[in-house]
């Protein structure tokens, strides 16, 4: 094959398999938001929908992750998320405290329990 074409191939895959399937949701959102008022009742439902989908993503990223996270035992991932959330509440709703404690528990747990 033409070597220039070989270099170009991963970028085509990026657009077709990464950019377009992802961007289609934003474009659809752009079209559907057109007639909506900031205070309309349907937006309360849409925000509830967005929150629930996002929560679903969070749950899946913790329980069924990809990449290097798969090497951390699931119990460690759950404990890290739970203790991080607890730290967030104890530290007067500090996002930084929650993330820092969650990460510390994950690293400590991974070092203690991983093969």
């Amino acid at each position, binding site marked *: 094959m033409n070597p220039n074409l070989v270099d170009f191939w*991963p970028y085509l*895959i*990026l657009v*077709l*398999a*990464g*950019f*377009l*399937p*992802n*961007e289609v*949701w*934003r474009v*659809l*959102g*752009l079209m*559907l*938001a057109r007639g909506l008022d*900031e205070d*309309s009742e349907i*937006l309360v*439902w*849409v*925000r*509830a*929908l*967005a*929150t*629930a*989908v*996002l*929560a*679903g993503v*969070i*749950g*899946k*990223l913790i*329980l*069924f*992750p*990809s*990449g*290097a996270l798969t*090497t*951390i035992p699931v119990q460690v*991932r759950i404990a890290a*998320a739970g203790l*991080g*959330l607890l730290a*967030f509440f104890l530290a007067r*709703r500090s*996002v*930084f405290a*929650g*993330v820092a404690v*969650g*990460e510390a528990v*994950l*690293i400590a747990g*991974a070092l203690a329990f991983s093969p």
Partner: protein
Amino acid sequence: MSDPAPETRAVSPLAPFFAGFRASWRSVFVYVLFGTFVGIGALAHDFGFSLGWMLLSTALIWAGPAQVVLISTLGTGGSAFEAALAVWLSSVRLLPMVIALLPILRTEHTRNRELILPAHLTAVSMWIESLRLLPAVPPEQRIAFCNGIGIGMLASSLLASGMGFYLAGSLPRVFAAALLFLTPMSFLVSVTRNSRLLVERLAFALGIALGPLLAAMQVELDLIWSGVIGGTIAYVVHRLREAAR
């Protein structure tokens, strides 16, 4: 300039843009994104993608989980079709987020094409910070402010993913895992922080239970269902409570 009329509305968009840019760098998310994208850059390097490809994918996709899914699906030998389907399903959250954000940005003078950039920049971190900060921004400055937040976050992510690409070989495995854990951990606490109304808290609790449950049951379109079921139950409870008052 003989006609001063357009001047009354044409506030320079640069000031609110830079205000948004600075706000993004004061947000805890810019550090979370930095760590996350060091992890994503290292992941892309490990699976043999080029630096240019990885940077372009950060700017074009601009949704961490989708990018991880794309890189790991292609990197572990999955087909382009398989990757496209997985990305498409993981990104459904962007649809209600864009629909919820754009009406806050729009004024009666707004042209639709001005909303294309904020729609593209919509990602969880930008969305959470925009919803938190925009109510204090004058309506005609909101698009520029929002673009500032998004571009600020994207800039830090591009820088971080480039660093991660070069650090890749020297990152210990546990550290690489900890970087990828930043995404669910920061989403978890910041969505909890932003959920102040009953309808949001309920939607959050239902979604975090339904997402993994439906995925474990291998229900197709699991995320769409967890959103529709969880979001709708939360909304119905909210309406019933309003009616009972």
